[in-house]
C-alpha cells in the first residue's frame, strides 16, 4: 500500500509541477511581447463598435489588471494565477464581451469528445492488432498491416488530415469536411443533431486514428514479440495452457503496462494533433478557437486556451497514471 501512496504522491507532484510551469510559461511568453495588449485590445474593440466611455474605462481597468503595464510583472503574475483559479481571464475580443473562459468552456467538450473517442479507438485497435501481429509474426495479413502502419506512422497530423480533406472534399465528396454539425439542425438532445455531430466527427476522428494507429500498432508489436520470448510465456506454452489465455493474460496483459505509460506520455502530442486536425476541418473545438484568437490578436483568449490546455492535458495524464497501478500489481502491493 505504501508503494501505491508513494506512486500517487509522485504523480500528484508532477501534476502540480506541470500545471505550474506550463501556465507560468504561457504567462511569461505572452509578456515577452513588446506590444501593449491593453491598448491594442481597446483600439480593436472601439474600432468595431461604439462603446460608452464608461464601458471603455471599465474594460481598460479589467484588461490592465490582467496584463497591465502599471504593475510590476511579478504582481501581475500573482494576479493572473488568482484570476485563473476563479476562472475569470477577462473578456475575449473575438466575441466581445463574452468572457474568454466561457468560449473555452464551450469549445472544450468538442475537443475532449474528439480526443477521447479517437484515442480510445486508436489505443484499442492499435494494441489489439499490434499484439496479434506480434504473436503471429509470419501471418501475411498482419505483415501487410505492419507495412501500412509503417507508412502511415511518420506522416504528421496535418498532412494526413489534409489528404483526407482532399480525398473526401474534392475527389469523392461524401462526408462533411467542415464544422461540428450541419446548419440545418438545432443543437440540443435530438436525433438529427446527434447524427449530424457524429457525421461531422468522422473525418477528424479518422485522421487522428490513422496517425495514432501506427505508433500503437508498431509499439505493441515490438513489445509483444519481446514478451513472447519471456520465460513465463514459453513456460506456459510448454505446459499446454490454452492459447487464448496465453495471448490475453500472459502476453498482451504484460505488454499493456508499458503501453499505458506510453499513453500518458503521448497525451500531450495527441492533444496537439487534435488541435491541428480541428483547424483543418474547422471543428468548433479548442484548436480552432486558439487559432482564431491568434489571428485576431486576442490576448485573453490565447492565454486562456493555452493555460486550460496545459491544465487539461496534465489532468488527463494524471488520470491515466492512476490506471497504471491497477494493471501492475508490483506497484499496488505493500
Amino acid at each position, binding site marked *: 500500500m505504501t508503494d501505491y501512496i508513494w506512486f500517487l504522491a509522485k504523480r500528484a507532484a508532477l501534476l502540480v509541477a506541470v500545471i505550474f510551469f506550463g501556465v507560468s510559461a504561457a504567462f511569461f511568453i505572452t509578456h515577452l511581447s513588446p506590444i501593449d495588449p491593453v491598448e491594442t485590445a481597446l483600439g480593436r474593440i472601439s474600432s468595431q463598435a461604439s462603446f460608452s466611455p464608461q464601458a471603455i474605462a471599465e474594460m481598460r481597468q479589467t484588461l490592465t489588471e490582467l496584463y497591465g503595464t502599471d504593475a510590476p510583472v511579478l504582481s501581475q503574475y500573482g494576479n493572473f494565477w488568482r484570476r485563473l483559479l476563479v476562472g475569470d481571464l477577462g473578456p475575449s475580443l473575438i466575441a466581445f464581451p463574452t468572457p474568454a473562459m466561457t468560449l473555452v468552456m464551450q469549445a472544450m467538450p468538442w475537443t475532449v469528445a474528439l480526443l477521447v473517442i479517437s484515442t480510445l479507438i486508436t489505443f484499442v485497435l492499435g494494441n489489439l492488432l499490434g499484439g496479434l501481429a506480434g504473436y503471429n509474426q509470419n501471418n501475411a495479413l498482419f505483415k501487410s498491416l505492419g507495412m501500412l502502419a509503417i507508412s502511415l506512422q511518420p506522416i504528421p497530423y496535418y498532412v494526413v488530415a489534409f489528404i483526407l480533406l482532399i480525398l473526401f472534399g474534392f475527389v469523392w465528396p461524401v462526408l462533411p469536411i467542415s464544422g461540428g454539425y450541419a446548419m440545418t439542425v438545432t443543437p440540443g438532445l435530438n436525433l438529427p443533431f446527434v447524427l449530424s455531430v457524429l457525421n461531422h466527427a468522422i473525418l477528424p476522428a479518422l485522421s487522428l486514428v490513422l496517425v495514432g494507429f501506427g505508433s500503437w500498432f508498431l509499439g505493441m508489436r515490438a513489445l509483444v514479440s519481446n514478451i513472447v520470448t519471456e*520465460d513465463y510465456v514459453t513456460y506456459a506454452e510448454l505446459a499446454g*495452457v490454452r492459447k487464448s489465455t496465453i495471448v490475453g493474460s500472459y502476453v498482451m496483459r504484460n505488454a499493456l*503496462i508499458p503501453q499505458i505509460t506510453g499513453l500518458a506520455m503521448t497525451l500531450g502530442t495527441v492533444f496537439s494533433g487534435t488541435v491541428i486536425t480541428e483547424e483543418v476541418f474547422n471543428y468548433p473545438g479548442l484548436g480552432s478557437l486558439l487559432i482564431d484568437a491568434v489571428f485576431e490578436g486576442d490576448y485573453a483568449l490565447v492565454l486562456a486556451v493555452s493555460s486550460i490546455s496545459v491544465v487539461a492535458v496534465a489532468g488527463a495524464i494524471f488520470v491515466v497514471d492512476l490506471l497504471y497501478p491497477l494493471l501492475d500489481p508490483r506497484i499496488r502491493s505493500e
Partner: protein
Amino acid sequence: MTDDILKVSDLKAYYQMNYYGNNFEVRAVDGIDMSVRRGEVYGIAGESSSGKSSFVKVLAAAIRPPLRLVSGSVRYDFAGHPIDLATADARDIEAIRWKHLSYIMQGSMSVLNPVRRIGRTFEDFASRPLNLRGRAFRDRIVAHLERLKLPAEVLQAYPHELSGGMRQRVTIGLATVCHPEFILADEPTTALDVVVQKEVLKLLRDIQKEMGAAVIFVTHDMSVHANVADRVGIIYAGNLVEEGPTREMFSAPKHPYTAHLVASLPRIGDTAQRPALDGRPPNLAKPPPGCRFHPRCPLAVERCRREAPPLETVSPDHRTACWRWSEVAPLVDHGMRQEVVR
C-alpha cells in the same frame, strides 16, 4: 533394458545463428546417447554453457528458434503413450505435456507471470490435465501445496510477493501437481541459499519418491548430485563424456574432467591445494577436433587431438568417453559427502 522410460540416441541440436549475413551453428547438443530408468533420478552436471539446458530443452520438446533439432531421436515410453519427440506431431506432444512429462525451466524466478495470481496460474496449468474445476480443483491444489509446505494464501499472491524459496516451491508444485511420470528439472535450486536449497531438494526428492516419477536433475553443483542423484551424467561441450552410478562417479571417476569436477568440491577440514582446471570450455561454434576436452586435459596425447573417443562401458552402468580412462585416478581421496539427505 525394458525398464527405460527415456531413450535418447545420437541427439544433435544446434543453434542456427545469423548475424547480419554471418551464418554459423552453435553445436550445443552434439551427439548424445543415454537413457533414464523408471523412477530414477538422473543427475546432469557440467560447467556453464556446456549445453545442459539445451539438452533438457530438447527433451522437454521446448525447441524454439534459433535452436533446431538436427538429428537423433528422443523416445519416451509413457504408460500407454510411447512417443518419439523427433517424429511426433504437435497434437501428440500436447497430449503428453504436464500429464506425463513436466519441466521446471532454468531461472524459476522468471517463469511465473508477474501480473497473474499464483492461483490463476495453477488453474491455467493444471485445470485441464487434472480435469477438475472449482472447489474440487482448489482442494486438490491446496493439499498439494501443503505437501510443499506452502500455505493456501500463496494462491492469492502475485509472484513478486513471494520469497525466492517460495517461488521455487511454487514452480515445483506446478510441475508436480499432475503427477507426471517424468520431470525435467533444470537447475531448480541454483538461485537459492544453502539452507533453502536443502529444504527444496528434500521436498523434491520426497515428492519424487511418493509419485515414483523419473527425474532428470540438472545442476553444475556436484554436491547436490551427491545428495539426490542415482546416476550422474557429465556433459562437456555438447557431449556426454561420462555417466555412472553416483557413488562410483565420486569415488572412481573414469574421465579426467569428472575427476576435476569431483575434486573441486569443498570439504570440511580439507586444506590440501587442489589443482585448478585451466582454460575455458570450447567455443561451441568451432569445437576443437578429436576429444573436445583435450586442450585442457592433463592426460592428453596425440590421439586425443585427432580422434574423438567413443562412449565405452567400463563397468556395469558406467560409461566414459576417454582414450586413457584406465589411467584416470581420483585427484583427491573422496568419500561420499556426509550430509546425504535420503
